[in-house]
């Protein structure tokens, strides 16, 4: 029975228990609802909750552990010589799961593996059947138990409300859970990585070339995992993006807020917001196929040697993407400057631009700095534009006409496609992810603090 059927069955049971619970309450009331503590609906909801919730909780827990438990069972039966070698082990596990899925006839593997594949298929069938049985019996047990607890003076409404409040708390805790999940999953793999590579080499190394030998007998480089070149590349592209986004975004916010006629604003503002809604993969395509060739050809005409994956192309397009972000944030900030400051300035005879430059802008500066920092963190974490338009070679350069690579590009190249787990190459992606997470988190927290302080000042 597939998962969707199981869920449907539980839903049907819930509906049924709602009906029973309600019926029972009506029967107990003897026709007068005032004999009951709560409305009949609450009794129905009470039984339905006790029927469905434990079963769903069980399903979640089951799925969290099913995969790893079965894998552990399979691995424990494999011959010793496979277990010793992590590369062979992952290969073996791969073929086992193929065989279990019914394929793998073309594989040339030892009989143990074929055996294990069959056993895996068996175990999966058993686990699925067990899940169905256990889940349905839990649902039924919940139904029966709660049904029998229904009495006329039972506080059904309070019960149901307590349950729903608990569900709400769990839902809001998911925000915490996902942060914790991010930190732990990245931390775990990063520590693994640091057991192979010295953290100091990673943090301060000046060379990045993650190609390591796949097999021990292969001739290959050791691989260097210094992240400084990646950060230089990231910062270069971010800087170019900011050079585009900050002036354009700021000036368009000023024009939109101070000068534009309402009709013009009604057209231009949504048009700017469209820029924010365009998916990043579209910008990446635009950067790689329109902007980069354009820059290369024009650079050649000027006698400049522009790489076809130049940092300039990626940075320019990323800047375009961030314009609406900067403009809407700084618009927010500038509109919060109290009107009295503006009026005072006008009363002294200042022109509009003098007021903006000498009164509003300085007053709003902390907020604008916060907005720019948020934009920087956006740019650092941006992936698709740089994956499609920036290079792969980790050059340590600040020349915007050359190709550089970024942290996000490396994470994608390391993790897309065939990967061997447990190799320093794969694990380094998680270490880069952790650094990226911490840097953007730091920037965000700092920027939000600045903006908040600024808001309090004028509240």
């Amino acid at each position, binding site marked *: 029975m597939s998962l969707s059927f199981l869920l449907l069955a539980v839903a049907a049971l819930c509906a049924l228990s709602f009906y029973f619970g309600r019926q029972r309450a009506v029967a107990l009331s003897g026709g007068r609802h005032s004999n009951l503590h709560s409305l009949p609906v609450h009794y129905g909801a009470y039984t339905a909750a006790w029927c469905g919730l434990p079963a769903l909780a069980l399903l979640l827990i089951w799925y969290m552990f099913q995969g790893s438990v079965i894998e552990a069972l399979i691995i424990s039966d494999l011959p010793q010589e496979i277990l010793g070698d992590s590369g062979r082990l992952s290969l073996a596990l791969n073929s086992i799961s193929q065989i279990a899925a019914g394929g793998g006839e073309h594989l040339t593997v030892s009989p143990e593996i074929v055996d294990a594949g069959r056993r895996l298929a068996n175990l999966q069938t058993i686990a699925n059947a067990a899940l169905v049985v256990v889940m349905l019996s839990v649902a039924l047990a919940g139904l029966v138990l709660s049904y029998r607890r229904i009495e006329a003076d039972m506080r059904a409404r309070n019960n149901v409300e307590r349950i729903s409040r608990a569900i709400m708390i769990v839902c809001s805790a998911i925000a915490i859970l996902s942060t914790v999940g991010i930190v732990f999953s990245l931390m775990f793999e990063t520590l693994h990585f640091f057991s192979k590579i010295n953290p100091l080499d990673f943090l301060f190394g000046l060379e990045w070339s993650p190609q390591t030998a796949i097999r021990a007998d292969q001739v290959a480089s050791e691989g260097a995992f210094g992240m400084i070149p990646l950060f230089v590349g990231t910062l270069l592209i971010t800087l170019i993006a900011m050079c585009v986004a900050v002036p354009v975004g700021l000036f368009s916010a000023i024009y*939109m807020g101070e000068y534009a006629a309402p009709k013009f604003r009604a057209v231009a503002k949504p048009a700017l917001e469209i820029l924010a809604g365009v998916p990043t993969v579209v910008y990446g*395509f*635009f950067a790689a196929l329109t902007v980069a060739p354009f820059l290369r050809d024009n650079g050649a005409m000027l006698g400049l040697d522009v790489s076809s994956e130049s940092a300039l192309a990626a940075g320019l397009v990323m800047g375009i993407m961030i314009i609406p972000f900067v403009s809407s944030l700084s618009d927010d900030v500038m509109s919060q400057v109290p009107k009295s400051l503006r009026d005072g300035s006008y009363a002294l005879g200042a022109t509009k*631009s003098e007021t903006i430059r000498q009164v509003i802008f300085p007053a709003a500066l902390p907020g604008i700095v916060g907005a720019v920092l948020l934009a920087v963190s956006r740019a650092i*974490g941006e*992936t698709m534009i740089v994956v499609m338009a920036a290079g792969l070679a980790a050059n340590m350069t600040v020349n915007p006409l050359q190709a550089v690579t970024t942290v996000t590009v490396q994470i994608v190249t390391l993790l897309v496609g065939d990967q061997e787990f447990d190799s320093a190459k794969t694990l380094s992606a*998680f270490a880069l992810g952790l650094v990226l997470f911490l840097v953007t988190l730091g920037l965000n927290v700092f920027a939000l603090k600045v903006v908040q302080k600024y808001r309090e000042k004028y509240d």
Partner: protein
Amino acid sequence: MTDMASLMEDRAAAKVISDNLRKPVDWDSPKIARNIKKRYAAERRFKIYGLVAICLALLALCTLALSIGSKGYSAFYQTYVQLEVTFDPAVIDPEGTGDPEVIGRANFDGLIKQALRDRFPDVTSRSEKRNLYGIVSGGASYDLRERVLENPSLIGQTRSIWLISGDDFDMLNKGYIDADVEEGSRRLNDQEVSWYNELVEAGAVEKQFHTRFFTNGDSREPELAGIWGAAVGSFYTLIVTLALSFPIGVLAAIYLEEFAPRNRFTQIVEVNINNLAAVPSIVFGLLGLEVYLNVMHLPRSAPVVGGLTLALMTLPTIIIASRAAIKAVPPSIRQAALGLGASPVQTVTHHVLPLAMPGILTGTIIGMAQALGETAPLLMIGMVAFIVDIPGGALDPATVLPVQIYLWADSPERAFVEKTSAAIMVLLAFLVLMNGLAVYLRKKFERKW
């Protein structure tokens, strides 16, 4: 003594200043006039800077739209070639059984090749023949099979039939391959171009609307590749995302806005939500890879995993929008309900939530639109695989529209450039539709209390 002296000095200075102030300013003096002129010029300059900034941004938008539109519009048409195909019974159904299975297994590719050889009888060498077969796409034989299966009476006849052309030929017909450049630097040699010219003169080349682009899955052959597989994958992914993030987000928002006491837990939750909204999307991909694939062993490349990952990403958007919508419901509504004896939960479910629903839905649709355009986290969980089949459920391997765009953008064939642009147009159309719906909902149900 020194105090006295400095006091005297101050007084003297003050007198000078007040004398200066008392002196009337000559507003008509040329100096003032010059000054004012300068200030007004600065004012105009400043205004122009602002206008230039907006124009630059709009110019970027137009360039983007134009470059994609001009590259992609041709992908909605496909070149077809008319050939005299003989439905040779000896090839299709030698024993005359009329059994669909026998017909289905017949070598229709051979029929097309025969038709091409008949059309250009002077082609003899092997390599020339191979080039000749490139005129018609490898997918044309499926069309022929469908045709014969539908209408078995065709067997034995000779018909002139429009067949879908190969990608290079298509590119030549659409003008992307310039026949005037030197032979060595283009994809088609002079002989192939002469075939093309001959066919064009005979009126046997035509562009037709390319329905396959909307109905096929991915393919290595550009002329056969379509976006339907990716669109279905996107659909399943979004369904999973919506099913998770909408209830969780709304419940969390209700709790935080209506029930949560001001304590540490609430504070931590709020800080977390704000930070999650700004975490780079690729980090969510790493989380998905580690938790869903490595720990929970969910299937790789499946829309379920994509949906689970994107749900975590859209959650902050939905929570923030829902909280704003719930906050906008005036307290008098709550007080009235409570005054009539409703419990707090009843107040929320019967009154606050229905009134806040339009705002919540608007936020949800915007969150879904973001999720639809998201690429980076899905690369991490293996949704970049080359998948030909249309996924039949949320557990089948699939890809999504933005990832399909990324894959095609990486393909070397010239014909994939127009496919990529066309896929982008389709994706943008979906996004415009969703955002338009959100704007409509907001306009229609917006209430000023």
